[in-house]
């Protein structure tokens, strides 16, 4: 298993490098750069000033040199036990430090949403399969397809607007980190997380239902039934456990969507995560920040996918991971 993990990690390094290269190339292709945006906002436009600023920020070098500087600094910093992702062109702050406070917030949002989605989708999916073609089933399935088609930002807008009109209630607006004040944090986070989870509830429920239907007609469930096991034991221990394996695969495939979706809700609910940072950085053409965020997200996605792949071995004893023990 360890050998498998190491091999997988080695394979992904080239694709991570490819992603950062591509991003850094694309963002430097454009006409207006960070300095011009800065100048437009600060109200100076002397060509000499712009050039001086570009030189100060190192933007006058060719892009491959800029990339190499950024990349080699990152590479050298890792053995020293820290991560050097460069400095923001805008705030001149250390990007790694900035990400360290923001990444956990985004991950908390995504993780909470996933937990909520599983907590809703799996029981509903199981009931929907066990009582198939009943009213409960029809209602659950109708809601599931709506969950996939409803634009999340619309729901979020409705949730912000209507309770405020009807009951003068609006979601809390001050964010507190989880380790400072868990209750305040959760009372802030539950709403964006719940909305983010709805999309996943939709298809996780459908997936659970489909897989349960397959498994419930299998021979070993028939055997369990013939042995006279109680229904609950058959459903939970024999059927659900097997039905969940493909569900885990789907979760793995949807991790990028989950993280992407977090961007939208971070914007609406002012959650100080990396999504909002990305949008601010994109407005200011803050290259190093954009580049760093893309890299971090790629790392997170790849790592989570690895975790999902390894969890097969735990869930399903029949699976042996190639390249290991």
């Amino acid at each position, binding site marked *: 298993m360890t050998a498998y993990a190491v091999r997988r990690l080695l394979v992904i390094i080239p*694709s991570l490098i*490819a992603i950062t290269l591509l*991003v850094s190339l*694309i*963002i430097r*292709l*454009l*006409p207006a750069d960070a300095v011009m945006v800065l100048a437009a906002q600060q109200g100076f436009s002397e060509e000499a000033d712009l050039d001086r600023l570009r030189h100060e920020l190192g933007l006058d070098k060719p892009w491959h040199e800029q990339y190499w500087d950024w990349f080699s600094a990152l590479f050298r910093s890792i053995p020293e036990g820290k991560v050097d992702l460069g400095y923001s062109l805008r705030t001149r702050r250390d990007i790694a430090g900035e990400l360290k406070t923001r990444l956990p917030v985004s991950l908390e949002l995504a993780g909470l949403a996933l937990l909520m989605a599983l907590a809703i989708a799996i029981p509903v999916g199981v009931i929907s399969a*066990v*009582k*198939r*073609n009943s009213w409960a089933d*029809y209602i*659950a*399935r*109708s809601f*599931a*397809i*709506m969950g996939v*088609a*409803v*634009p*999340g*930002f*619309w729901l979020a*807008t*409705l949730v912000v*607007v*209507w309770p*405020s*009109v009807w009951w003068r209630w609006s979601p809390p607006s001050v964010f507190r980190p989880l380790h400072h004040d868990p209750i305040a944090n959760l009372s802030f986070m539950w709403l964006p997380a719940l909305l983010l989870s709805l999309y996943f509830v939709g298809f996780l429920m459908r997936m659970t*239902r*489909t897989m349960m*239907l*397959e498994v419930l*007609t299998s021979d070993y469930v028939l055997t369990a*039934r013939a042995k006279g096991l109680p229904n609950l034991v058959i*459903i939970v221990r024999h059927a659900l456990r097997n039905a969940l394996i493909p569900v885990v695969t789907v979760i793995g*495939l949807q991790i*990028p*969507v989950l*993280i*992407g979706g977090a*961007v*939208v809700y971070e*914007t609406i609910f002012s959650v100080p995560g990396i*999504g909002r940072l*990305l*949008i601010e950085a*994109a*407005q200011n*053409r803050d290259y190093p920040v*954009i580049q760093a*965020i*893309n890299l971090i*997200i*790629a790392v997170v*996605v*790849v790592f989570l*996918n690895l975790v999902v792949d390894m969890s097969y071995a735990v869930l399903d004893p029949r699976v042996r991971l190639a390249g290991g023990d």
Partner: protein
Amino acid sequence: MEATGAELGYRVHPLSRLWDATKAVWTFYSRQPLGAFSLTVLVVFALMGILAPVIAPYPYAETDILHRLEGPSLKHPLGTDNLGRDVLSRIIWGARVEMLVGLGAVAISGFTGTVLGALAGYFRSRLDWLVQRYVDIQMSFPGIILLITIISMFQPGLIQVMVAIGILLIPAVTRVVRSASLAVSSMPYIEAARTLGAPAWRTVLRHVLPNVFPPVMVAVTTQLGQAILIEATLSFLGYGVPPPQPSWGALLGPEARKDMLKAPLLSVWPGLAIFLAVYSFNMFGDALRDVLDPRIRRAMSRSPLPRPFGQGHRRPEEKSRGHRPFPLPVGRRPRQPRY
């Protein structure tokens, strides 16, 4: 269904063809009511988009500062926004923008994805490996972040948004077409074509492509809905089609949200339009899948909605029964286990 004259290779009168087409549409409407409903909704949206200059009661950018944030009235059926613009007109014009972005994006993804997928599946060589790595890498990255990164770098515009979304959607098509092409390429008729000495390009063009067409149609229909959803999300975040062009997402965007508490109904209409369009494309794609590829088991298909009773289709679960120890008498349905 009986084979039509044209399918059997007879020369047929054009009117007869028209009759066949009418019958096909009728069959679709009666067998797939939900798909047909979706198709109707989509046709209405398409007409809205095409006829926008004719049917929109006001120009989309006409402001009327004296009548801002009004509720629904006879003059403005859906009210006015924070600059006094007629919301109904903006939604009608928005349909045009959404349809354009959707069609443009899907044209890009459909064409590129089909070419890449068909070739990768047919040649199964280093090209296949490369294509698969490309698909893996792009699919493992959050699309919206890629889009914001790309779009924020160019001057915003309709074409840019179209291209960016198109690129984002390529891997999904590629994947579908590749697996279809893999299956088709191992068919005897492909081997026959090769044996007869047909060059590779001809085999791909004449034999592989027509046979991977049905899944492409399904993928592309669903993607039209996705493209609209993505465009709306981008516009909502302020990265979509630039103002003053009205996009459904922008109607809910930061500008519009400032005064939404004073006219809360403004938050309803654009979202409803997006939802209806996306939902219809999804359902129509599902119906299309059922019609074009009857081999796919309903249980695995994406529609969780029940098939209306009395439509002459078997329930999906019964098809996947697998091996039964004793042959059952014809005409008796096996008893379902009770849970």
